[in-house]
């Protein structure tokens, strides 16, 4: 999938569905992510991974979508995990302390107990 400056690659594994983000996630490209997450939720995999390693930029709108997905996953029982992402992503997670409420993994294929 491609927005103006966001591209999302979807990879389905046996136990998980991985959404790999490339580019910039902001107000303009947020709807694209929203749509991808909703489709992924419908896939009904055990785990959804948001791979942010190639994401150059994220702001509060992107964060909001991720946090909403997190809340949704709590309700549905599906797990949601994020990779750490770039410096900028990590910085935002740190400033907002949103990372404390999310499952952060080292790599998209990391096995979760």
């Amino acid at each position, binding site marked *: 999938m491609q927005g103006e400056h966001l591209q999302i690659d979807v990879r389905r594994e046996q136990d998980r569905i991985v959404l790999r983000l490339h580019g910039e996630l902001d107000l303009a490209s947020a709807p694209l992510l929203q749509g991808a997450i909703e489709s992924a939720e419908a896939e009904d995999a055990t785990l959804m991974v948001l791979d942010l390693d190639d994401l150059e*930029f994220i702001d509060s709108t992107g*964060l909001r979508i991720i*946090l909403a997905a997190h*809340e949704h996953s709590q309700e549905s029982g599906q797990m949601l995990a994020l990779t750490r992402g770039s410096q900028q992503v990590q910085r935002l997670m740190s400033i907002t*302390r949103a990372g404390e*409420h999310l499952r952060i993994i080292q790599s998209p294929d990391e096995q979760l107990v």
Partner: protein
Amino acid sequence: MCTPTPGAILSLTGAATADATATIMAPCAFDVETEGDPISVNTEPVNDAAVELLLEAGVALAASLDLTTTMGQVARLTVPRLADVCVIDLLDEDGSIRDVAVAAAEETIARDLEEMRSRHPLDPEGEHPVARVIHSGEPVLLPEMTNQLLSSFAQGSEHARFMIDHGYRSAAVAPLLARGRTLGAISTLRLGDGRAYGSEDMDLVCELARRAALAIDNARLFSRLRGVEQRLEAILVNLAEAITVMDEHGQMVFANQAAADLLGAGTPDQLMSAQPGTIMPRFQVLDEQGNELALASMPSRRLFAGESPQPLLVRNIVRATGEERWLVVRSSPVFDPETKRIVYAVNVFENITEVKRVQLNESFMAEASRMLASSMDYAETLQQVARLAVPRLADWCAVDVLNERGEIELVAVHHADPAKLAMAERLDRRYRPTLDDPTGVAEVLRTGQARIFTDIKPDALAAYAHDDEHLELLRMIGPQSVIIVPMIGATKTIGTITLVSSESSRRLSSADLALGERLARRAGTAVERARLYTERSRIAHILERSLLPESLPEVPGAEIRARYSPTGEVNEVGGDFYDLFECRPGCWMLAIGDVCGKGPSAAGVTALARHTLRAAALSGQSPVEMLHTLHRALRLQPAGADLCTVCLVLMTPGLDHARLTVSLAGHQPPLLIDRDGTVVSLGEPGTLLGVVDPIDLLESDAELHVDQTLLLYTDGVTEAGRAGRQLGEQGLRGLCAQTAHLTLDELLEHIEHAALERAGGGLRDDVALLAVRLGRGGPGSGGPAPRGAGEPREAH
């Protein structure tokens, strides 16, 4: 009637007759071949009697074009001096021979002969002398006719009997020859004992025949011409196009009824009897651009001047009534066949008023619509429309709108005459209509119905005027006809357009009214749209002002500055906010925050945030408590995560420094900038508000010393521009270090500029800055801070 001089060119001159068919005859010249001297014949006449006969015949022939009359006269002239019986036969178009005149000394013989001929018409191929003469074109002289001879060419036994009984003795039959054709024959007969015809008699009869033939031919030609003329006239008279024929002196020699109607005469006769040069002044004749056209440029005039003029489009206004017509005038020459000179110009006037009006109206409406759609500044576009309407539609155009106070406001006025424009403006502004005026703009505003006054009389003007000066002004402008049309928005009349035509030009008509209404409808929609847009902008600005402090309070000993640059269009409210207020005596709360998103819903959250924080502060809560309160308020909001980040700094200025308590909720830490360029960030990260639970918030203490600057900012500053180009937190710190020595305004200017410059195609998020600098002793210059160098900027 023809009154020729013998021997002269016989011209048939027509004059307008007053009969019902309004026969108009153009002067035409017929050459009737007579020799200069009527007396000269092929042989010398032997006696005066012959001369006299020919003279009398000439007179008779010229006196009338009625063949029956003239032939009868000629035949009678020959009896009895030349013959006992004279018969004139003509060859009909179907080839039969018909007697047109019979004369005899005795009446009974003439009648009997006619009867005989009708019962036994002559065989054109037969042996009868008349047939032979007609056939050959050669005269036949039968000096002595025997019974046997008579029988040989008789048309049956009865005919033979007739001729023998009546004593047919001698005959001279001459052909009627004209222009190379045999038209018939003249037969002279002597009966009984009369003298036999000789060759001299034959010559005389031939001469007589020659003249008669010419007269017959001319008469026939004329009759044919008359027939053609009548047919032509029947066509021309009834044509819808106006047709006139002018001669080189400007005299109109032909006009049909349509022309009479067009040129304001009752009938074609009245039109043609007018003196040359008296018709044109009845009209104002203009070209398409509105310039007067001279007589010399009329196609007919130019034809006579030797040119080949193109069809001319003319705008013709009847001076008396002000009626306007659009005509295409085409002129074609009629040449004299002999001299090849132009003798007449045939003018055809095609009335294209309807077509032209539609074309002009459509192009006007297209242009007006384009103007009205081009800008949201409706006062300016209405002024443009008023200029467009003048002078095409009228001499004077004014646009009034009803404002929210119920007053009638003039938004546009234009006059064709610049001198009169000043007058019109003065008049409009001094004598402003009010809604309770009985007539005029007020009436149309109240009723929503258009009004047209086609012909304004002086006393109507006097009745309308408020006072003498008003009347004087009105008189100077001289309105002749007025149209007032309502500009109707979605539901009600929002204004009017007034069109006034004055003395010089045409009356305004119902066609103008229809166009005016169309224009007003279009203008009404445009004005309403523009107003809504302006209203939305105004609301947005009001909202924005309520989201941000109107002015920043003065903090003793400190300099406060703020900057705000929203993203988005003029109409979109922003998602960032800042605030500064004295929460308790000597204690100031600085706040900066970022609500996710933009537009009305974000504005709602922004308002909630600002006012909740204020309320919480005023009720004595600490920064952390305030943030918790806001968080709970946000979580209570229905639907959607109302994410919000906030930075709070509680500042308590003391003797030589200010104490600071910093609490952060998901927001960038404020920077403490030393004059020497040292930059440190304050506070500990705390959870963002409104989306997750539980939240963890911390307070930290710091100090602000003299010449130090405290800077609060939103991520719009650090994240402006595409990834990789952004200022970032490091970049901001570096910039602050470099500009620490500048004035506070300059420092903020630099930061704002750095962000906007990187933004390039558009800010991703609002840019908000709030800064405090502690001054050197004494009350600092707080004062109202400019909100983003004036009004919020347009998106870049």
